[in-house]
């Protein structure tokens, strides 16, 4: 029975790609391992290898096709004794119905061709049941008073926004440089530094060995001597090796020196859960770093915030922890087209106004908050959704003003529940707005477990929209 060759997923979260080139034509004999096609994602070009032998019976998707969904049949492979007439009687593909890379490889499997393999987890999280949440390509993010009315908006991914922020600041200030693992020649493990090496050269885009503790310290030393390093951690999980330098050296030196010298620098990289990378690669560090005086902690959700706040962080004379998210990297938002778009660190953004309940979140937590607010609006409950954007210093006045209006508060984050960011907010709100509260504050966080690998358990470990909806209904006594 002819076998369908499917559009492969080349990363755990890839959803679609372009069929750049066919390297075989109909009638060709192929053996397993033969390269049959090239596929482009937004980061890399990958080769597709045949994993079965046979004859290419028919090419179903033409060369040059864009946006081919993962698992779409792209060709038909005839097996011994079959002819093109047998097409139409294809066996069901052995591809993974969950839209993830199949262990047995369906009919095609990717390997990197250009050294730019797919570390990236750029697309959206793939839920356990395999249905990707439909996300608008440019979600409505609410108006930002820092963006002048009438500004032209350009759809931009978070990844591009971060890169643009670094490039703009590097153009403006010779002392700004970026260092980290794979930031230069590889163009960034998650492609955030793509193109920077070409523009700024190896002096200012510095590939480091895999040596987080050491290069974090080198970055702090460079900052103490007056440079403005951007230290990229491939993910903040690996910064655990470097946390002594971040806290004991970067955060405390200004105080310990009586104001003589500090560490004007940015530590940036992905934080939090990606997709199916389990306990050691999935931790959210918002609460951890927010504990430490001497640091600023920024965790943007939108591309506009990512850009405006990263530019601010690079200019800030203090050490700034800039927590990104692998799943958000590939999401597109409108970014204002301005020559120098800088947002203030320490200022929350009201994403959506409402009078019934305040939902406070940040980073990827906003995805749950926004969807819950939309769902609740359908049920007649209007939520005010606040995107903190900066965890430290925290814009508590904006939160407290909102709670005074709504009388209810739900916080949402992906990090662990004990001593969470939400716990801190709840504490401050009960102290400063106790008389305004009509219900106890509910804090929603990740579950109190190391991140599991199994898809179903991973899903259970993270917050979900239903939890947020239920919490809001509880505090508004609607359920």
């Amino acid at each position, binding site marked *: 029975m002819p076998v369908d060759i499917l559009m492969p997923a080349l990363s755990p979260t890839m959803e679609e790609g372009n069929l750049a080139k066919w390297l075989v034509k109909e009638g060709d004999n192929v053996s397993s391992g033969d390269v049959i096609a090239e596929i482009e994602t937004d980061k890399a070009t990958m080769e597709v290898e045949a994993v079965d032998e046979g004859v290419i019976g028919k090419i179903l998707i033409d060369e040059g096709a864009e946006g081919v969904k993962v698992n779409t049949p792209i060709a038909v492979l005839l097996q011994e004794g079959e002819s093109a007439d047998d097409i139409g009687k294809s066996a069901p593909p052995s591809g993974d119905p969950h839209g993830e890379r199949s262990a047995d490889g369906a009919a095609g499997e990717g390997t990197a061709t250009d050294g730019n393999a797919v570390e990236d987890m750029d697309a959206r999280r793939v839920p356990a049941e395999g249905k990707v949440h439909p996300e608008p390509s440019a979600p409505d993010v609410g108006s930002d008073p820092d963006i002048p009315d009438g500004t032209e908006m350009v759809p931009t991914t978070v990844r591009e926004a971060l890169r643009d922020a670094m490039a703009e600041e590097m153009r403006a200030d010779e002392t700004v*440089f970026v260092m980290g693992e794979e930031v230069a020649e590889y163009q960034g493990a998650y492609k955030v530094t793509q193109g920077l090496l070409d523009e700024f050269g190896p*002096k200012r885009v510095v590939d*480091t*060995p895999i*040596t987080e*503790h*050491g*290069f*974090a*310290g*080198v*970055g*702090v*030393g*460079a*900052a*103490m*001597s*007056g*440079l403005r390093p951007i230290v990229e951690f491939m993910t903040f999980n690996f910064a655990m090796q470097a946390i*002594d*330098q971040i806290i*004991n*050296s970067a955060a*405390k*030196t*200004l*105080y*310990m*020196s*009586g*104001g*003589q*010298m*500090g560490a*004007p620098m940015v530590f940036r990289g992905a934080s939090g859960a990606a997709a199916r990378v389990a306990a050691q690669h999935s931790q959210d560090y918002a609460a951890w770093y927010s504990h430490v*005086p*001497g640091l*600023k902690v920024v965790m943007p959700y939108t591309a506009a915030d990512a850009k405006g706040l990263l530019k601010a962080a690079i200019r*800030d*004379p*203090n050490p700034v922890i800039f927590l990104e998210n692998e799943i958000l990297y590939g999401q597109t938002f409108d970014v204002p087209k301005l020559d120098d778009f800088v947002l203030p660190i320490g200022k929350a953004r009201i994403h959506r106004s409402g009078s019934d309940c305040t939902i406070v979140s940040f980073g990827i937590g906003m995805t749950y908050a926004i969807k819950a607010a939309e769902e609740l609006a359908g049920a007649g409950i209007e939520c005010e959704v606040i995107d903190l954007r900066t965890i430290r210093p925290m814009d508590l006045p904006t939160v407290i003003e909102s709670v005074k209006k709504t009388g209810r508060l739900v916080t949402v984050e992906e990090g662990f529940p004990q001593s969470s960011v939400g716990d801190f907010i709840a504490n401050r709100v009960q102290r400063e707005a106790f008389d305004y509260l009509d219900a106890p504050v509910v804090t929603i966080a990740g579950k109190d477990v190391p991140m599991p690998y199994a898809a179903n358990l991973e899903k259970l470990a993270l917050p979900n929209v239903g939890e947020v909806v239920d919490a809001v209904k509880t505090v508004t006594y609607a359920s």
Partner: protein
Amino acid sequence: MATRAKKTPAASARGKTSSTIKAPKPAEFSKDDELLAYREMLMIRRFEEKAGQLYGMGFIGGFCHLYIGQEAVVTGMQMAAKEGDQVITGYRDHGHMLAAGMESRGVMAELTGRQGGYSKGKGGSMHMFSKEKNFYGGHGIVGAQVSLGTGIAFGNKYRENGAVTMTYFGDGAANQGQVYESFNMASLWKLPVVYVIENNRYAMGTSVSRASAETDFSHRGTSFLIPGFQVDGMDVRAVKAAGELALEHARSGKGPIIVEMQTYRYRGHSMSDPAKYRSKDEVQKMRSEHDPIEQVKARILEKGYADEAELKAIDKEVRDIVSDAAEFAQTDPEPDASELYTDILH
């Protein structure tokens, strides 16, 4: 110590890699050199003795690590350094600060936690800095200064300012992982840094032989192609010559270099250490046979660079400066309560 230093050329010769450098002969000291070294080392000695007293009187709190016995190391290195070269070290840092030209008043007042201290009283013995004197601390985490110093050297290369970073650490810190991460990057990027390993034989109470598989610290850079050599760190002339060679090596673009200074601390690790891990004889022998100040003094007298009376005058001058610093450090007010919340962020 002298016998250990003598084996240095042999130890160097046995190395098979390009990472071996022969230790230079001790520098020829002029009259001025000898008198400068004498005064500088005496200043550190008297300062530290006074700090010990003030600790005993309760004026200095917390941890206090004295540099007595090791004075020749920073003094000789500083004599070899050029304007603009930076210094960074660990927590046994009082001598480095004085040698770098920081005021004894400001250092002592920091030890007593007063507003006139270099860090306004907020850093203490282990955390002091002077941007003006290119002194980058004063770091309390063992080994952290090695990565930081490497980063300062990265800044030198980035700015092409011709400066070299003297990064000091002890035989204990030499076993920290980040030291080797830093060695690797410094060598890979040819950073202008001199790693000065002050081997005073004990990491707190653990002797070198009980903590280190390779006790020749000048070889610790071998895997990273960083050359190194051992120096009699009790002889300020040997230190100066070593410093000149090492600084020139780093400044000329050849990358990092390791200088193992074989030295000795007379006092305990900190004020609360009775030093039961070594014999009194060992300490006494070192003091009587290898004291860095006595060595200089003997040469000065022998060569007639100064007589006893002239040396006494230097002694008095130094004592007066230290007494003044101590007086200041005891009478200067504590920082204002409002300082609690300053200097956390810019």
